[in-house]
């Protein structure tokens, strides 16, 4: 029994269902990554918090001033570990130069996008469980299979580090776009878009959704978290 029992706080079943399904999907082959790598990425996210190098980088004026080896026990290759740990622990200070260095070490933009999607999805699911004192959903068994390696050519250069989904975008009556860039960001790998937003949209939507908060409260919380993450977007 935890010291401060919040187990009677209400759960929303559609969130639980979305989280379970998304965790299961880590065990399946992706578009560019095999199932073993995807499961290991989930496990790496779960252990990255305890990495001493990340902590040192976090405390540094520039997180790129401290070099060394990340603490990792998953057997993932060092460059994937670097991506996972930066995203988990120093994502607020990612730079284009860092991104370029990742690609220069042989990671394709498509692989990068799939890794980013997997990490961000795990951060939401595990963060939600941790915040409310739920058991973390166990990592699934890798089911094998072969990545589809199906490239999406419906992408466009739009000023991001990576090409984003190419779509005809209309403005809504508010003057904001119907499909914001954040939805298009992982367009290089459509399956990553589906996987990530299956979780994201269970907890937030631009349109009315199942919540006891009013819209100003929802957007206040979103903005505050964006501010902690130094998110320009």
């Amino acid at each position: 029994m935890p010291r401060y029992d919040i187990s009677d706080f209400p759960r929303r079943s559609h969130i639980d269902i979305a989280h379970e399904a998304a965790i299961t999907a880590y065990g399946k082959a992706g578009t560019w990554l095999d199932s073993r790598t995807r499961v290991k990425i989930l496990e790496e996210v779960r252990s990255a918090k305890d990495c001493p190098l990340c902590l040192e980088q976090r405390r540094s004026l520039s997180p790129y001033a401290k070099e060394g080896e990340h603490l990792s026990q998953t057997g993932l290759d060092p460059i994937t570990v670097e991506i996972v740990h930066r995203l988990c622990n120093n994502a607020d200070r990612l730079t284009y130069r860092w991104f370029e260095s990742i690609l220069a070490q042989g990671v394709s933009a498509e692989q990068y996008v799939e890794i980013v999607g997997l990490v961000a999805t795990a951060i939401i699911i595990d963060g939600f469980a941790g915040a409310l004192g739920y058991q973390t959903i166990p990592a699934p068994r890798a089911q094998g299979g072969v990545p589809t390696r199906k490239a999406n050519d419906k992408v466009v250069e739009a000023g991001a580090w990576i090409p984003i989904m190419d779509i005809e975008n209309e403005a809504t009556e508010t003057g904001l776009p119907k499909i914001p860039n954040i939805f298009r960001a992982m367009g290089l790998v459509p399956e990553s878009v589906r996987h990530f937003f299956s979780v994201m949209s269970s907890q937030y939507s631009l349109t009315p959704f199942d919540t006891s908060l009013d819209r100003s409260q929802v957007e206040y919380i979103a903005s505050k978290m964006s501010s902690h993450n130094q998110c320009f977007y």
Partner: protein
Amino acid sequence: MLLRRSGEASEKDYDLAGMLTESPVGVEGEAVFDRLVQLTYEESYDALHQFLFESKQTMSPEKLVDAVAIATAFNGITKVANASGLPLDQATEETTKKLRMSSGINEFADDLKSDRYN
């Protein structure tokens, strides 16, 4: 920033400069949300559980759970934005120019981060 839009829709005037500072913005329950978001971001879960338990006195558990859902969702989606160097949609950039200057969000622009940290 959709907080401005929701303010317009509900005809409430929010002080958005407070988004990056300690000054109040004018949203109901914001002091609770500030702490909840901070502890969620820091993954300080023991402290967060204590805070949620104590906050039941002032805010319903349903609202607290829904607030955690929003906070954790945005802790994830900002990683996607930061990792992709995503620019603003053109329409968003035009309609939020003044707001972004007054709130200080422009300080988080990717080119400024590259200058600062590399």
